[in-house]
């Protein structure tokens, strides 16, 4: 079940030290254009507030 996986993933990542706000999960139906826009706005705002991710990133120089 995807939802159970996400519930545990969010907790697990937060536990190792990756901010829980970076793991965002929700349902949007194809007919919910408005909601989709809202979700994306919300996610963008959250991520902006947290700043760039710097954990578990690979430096491919």
């Amino acid at each position, binding site marked *: 079940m995807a939802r159970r996986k996400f519930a545990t993933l969010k907790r697990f990542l937060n*536990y190792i030290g990756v901010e829980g706000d970076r793991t965002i999960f929700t349902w949007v139906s194809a007919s919910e254009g408005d909601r989709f826009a809202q979700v994306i706005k919300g996610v963008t705002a959250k991520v902006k507030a947290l700043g760039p991710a710097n954990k578990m990133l690979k430096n491919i120089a």
Partner: protein
Amino acid sequence: MENIESKLREEAKRLLLEKRADIIVGYEKGTLPLTATPCFVSTEAEADKLVYNELCTQNLAKYVHDLITAHKNSQKRVKPEDRKKKVIGVVARGCTTRSLIIHLQERQYERDEVYIIGVPCEGYVDKKNLAKALDSAEIIDGNLDGLQLKIKTAAGDKTIAVSDVIAPNCAVCRFNNPIISDIMVGTPAPVKNPATEYDKISEFEKKDIAERWDYFTKEMEKCIRCNACRQACPSCYCPTCFAEQSQPQWVGIGEDKSDTQVFQCMRLFHMVGRCVDCGSCISVCPMGVDLRNYLKKIDKDCWELFGTRAGSSMEEMPPLGKFSEQDKEDFIYNP
């Protein structure tokens, strides 16, 4: 613990003689003092090498899976009507039977392909705890006298109680007696102290996020990507591990810090509802990475969120295979 070795050998001989099992997976004396190592017994004479004591660390369900898979692969070239089933006998304590249950629930083999010789368990001696108790003095020789370890070290003789150097997972074990078995050798062992099993995790959860990330990076820097943890784990049985896939390549195989973190993160996360806290991965890790801090967290979440413990019952569905209307929904984002 009562000495059940002679009973165990007798049972193994009987199984082989009556052709109820083709191979029996058990433990034999290890090559180093105070160790025991997994072994395979296929003749009656070999059954005499079987041992069972507090030095047996590894979870034998791993070998059951390996043997059955290898046999099934070898049967692929045989005409379907001529294919034979092989029965693997296994000496199984609590955690081993939990892993067997997980295999059975994940349809890895049929119940009649394993013959489970259940044994009670008092917990096993943790190498690292033992080394600490001996101030890392080299062990020259040693033997187990009841629940006392009589050890000859480079720094003199010592006697240590097994209970003082027991593995951390065994000290809080909830399932130290077999959950399923075909035959039980020995009487059930007294229960351990599971009430405190999540204490350390709750403490770690309260730490600051930066501190948690620090600990994770520090631990994972120790890891040399030897994959011993994966090889020892009964729940890690994929024919091709994601860590070795090249199309797509999920994670780099090199020494890059982030690759190691991602590898660990993914292996650990694959243990949701599947880790039985047998400690096999921890006991084989050459670098002493603190994997249990994370595995136990996963177990704790699984219990708190879904009320299930991995492999604890044959009838109950695995936690990720079902859904309940009572599941918490606080993780879902609703703007």
